[in-house]
């Protein structure tokens, strides 16, 4: 009974901010790269693309953020944070070298077993591209690439300056083992080389088949709403449309009662759900 210490699932690992990158021209998105203060914690933080963590700022609080790095990238873990409220604003003013905490990995992940041997269609919008970046980096590693067939990516933002990971996007564009379809809602940049149009419309144009394919969709609610019928028209059954949800969270481990949709906790049973599963849950998200 007592004497046997219980592992404390609320206790964050101490980390140091190793690198901060401003991602977007409006400066509202920054990527934070963390290094674990105790190297053995990195092993304990073994994660799978699609999972999230609680970023823990002493004196300010904790926020759930999707893991943007890939488990194939060693020595650090990275998150891209949008500036919206108390904790995120504070983080945007933090400096490299500062100490904070991360707690996780939390939640489920994209259905990697099911995805093996399939064509992968990734549809992302805005700053929800974070765990999709993790997934793409993971899949295109030489040791993983053969496990998946064609990889197609539709990724859009309002304008070119709001796209995340622009250097990497340009690199992926050059590769022949991944079909990139980058798009913006609009732009006045005469040199813009990629698509112009909303994500659902570009998806309809560029993705031609649902054969042996699985679609992963992450983005603002409005994008998800209009992408869903496009995918269904292409022939994706709801079991093969995978979504990642957001809810306000605190504990991240299914105890504080905050993030439920029906009898599921988004933090523990999600954040990844198939559309088929979501249809059996109340539409309260």
């Amino acid at each position, binding site marked *: *009974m*007592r004497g046997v210490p*219980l*592992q*404390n*699932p*609320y*206790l*964050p690992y*101490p980390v140091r901010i190793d690198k901060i990158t401003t991602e977007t021209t409006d400066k509202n998105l920054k990527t934070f790269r963390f290094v674990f*203060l105790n190297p053995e914690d990195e092993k304990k933080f073994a994660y799978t693309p699609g999972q999230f963590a609680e970023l*823990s*700022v*002493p*004196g*300010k*609080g*904790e926020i759930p953020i999707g893991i943007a790095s890939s488990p194939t990238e060693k020595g650090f873990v990275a998150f891209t944070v949008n500036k*919206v*409220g108390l904790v*995120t604003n504070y983080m945007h003013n933090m400096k490299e070298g*500062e*100490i*904070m*905490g991360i707690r996780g990995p939390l939640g489920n992940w994209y259905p990697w077993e099911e995805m093996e041997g399939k064509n992968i269609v990734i549809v992302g919008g805005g700053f929800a591209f974070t765990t999709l970046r993790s997934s793409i980096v993971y899949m295109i590693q030489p040791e993983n690439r053969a496990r998946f067939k064609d990889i197609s990516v539709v990724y859009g933002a309002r304008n070119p300056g709001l796209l995340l990971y622009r250097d990497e996007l340009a690199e992926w564009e050059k590769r022949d083992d991944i079909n990139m379809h980058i798009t913006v809602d609009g732009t006045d940049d005469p040199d813009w080389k990629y698509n112009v149009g909303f994500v659902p419309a570009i998806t309809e144009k560029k993705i031609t088949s649902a054969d042996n394919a699985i679609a992963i969709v992450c983005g603002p*609610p409005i994008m998800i709403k209009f992408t869903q019928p496009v995918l269904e028209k292409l022939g994706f059954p709801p079991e093969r449309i995978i979504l990642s949800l*957001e*809810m*306000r969270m*605190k*504990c991240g*481990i*299914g*105890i*504080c*009662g*905050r993030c*439920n*949709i*029906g*009898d599921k906790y988004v933090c*523990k049973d999600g954040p990844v759900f198939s559309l088929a599963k979501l249809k*059996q*849950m*109340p539409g*309260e*998200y």
Partner: protein
Amino acid sequence: MTNKIFTKEEWTKALQGLSDSYKVFVPVKDGDFHTFKPMNATKAPDFDFQNTRLSARSLVYPQAERMFEYSLDENDPEANIIKETPKDYSPQAIVGIRPCDAHGFKIVKPNFDNKEYRDPWWIQHFESTVLVGLGCNQPCSTCFCASVGGGPFNKDVLDVLIYDLGANFMVSGLTEKGEAFLSKAQGGKAADDAAVKQAEALATEAAKKVKADVPTDKLKDKVINDLFAAPFWQDVGFACLNCGTCTYLCPTCWCFDIQDEVLGKQGDRIRNWDSCMFPLFTLHGSGHNPRDQKFQRVRQRFMHKLKYYVDKYQGGVQCSGCGRCVRYCPVNIDIRQVAELMNNY
């Protein structure tokens, strides 16, 4: 099983003696209501009450609880490292807890202690607690413990059960923990057959008085989305003020918030009870709120207690029938009626 008889004075004395080995909490009259307070020599326990206004939940799961602490002092080499707050888990006893409130701990246990995650604070507080229950001779009109798997003398979760025989208490040890507690109680004498018979008769009488017909039997067979879309939610929630009283008084509500508080260069991470009745509970940073309407929050409370929990744990409803939310709701929203609506839908 030890059955002992104490006069009421002897029992109070015994509890004073037990205070050397346990933190003993007893019901004390405080204004118009009873509340659990640590035993002390000046204010005597008062076992003549219906139930405490607040359940005993906070003695295992404090309304505000320190989780972690940290230093924000840049000169401190350990600055910004989040550390566990030392805790006192020395044994405590809740004496006079009603069986419904003890049952509440059993209902919430799978939330705090399951295969995936174990809440160290709830578990250790709970394990260090002896539940010394007091049977209900006169259940109130709003109680319905017998409808939800309990009863006025339900022994399920208790370590000790007290029967109020008028001038005397009969005190029964039910578990090892309870027997250990009783073995340290000074005074009293072994109960004779007549006392045991009298106690059993009290329990039988009380069981007849308590409401046992709130229907919950068909809830498990319903489809979540059907109940969710039922037409009665607007009506059920119409008068609700979203005051949160029902959730704070309830022995089976467990939701909490986590906040950081800083004084000078020293910070604490604290968890506080929270309530699904408040719109902030689900408000995203973006401004989006999946439950921004009152009826949605009322629906969440009842769906959680009477359907989601039922499906998730397969062990009945998330309600011990204490009747507090019925008694204290300012607009008379009655979970018994809602259970009936849902069960018969």
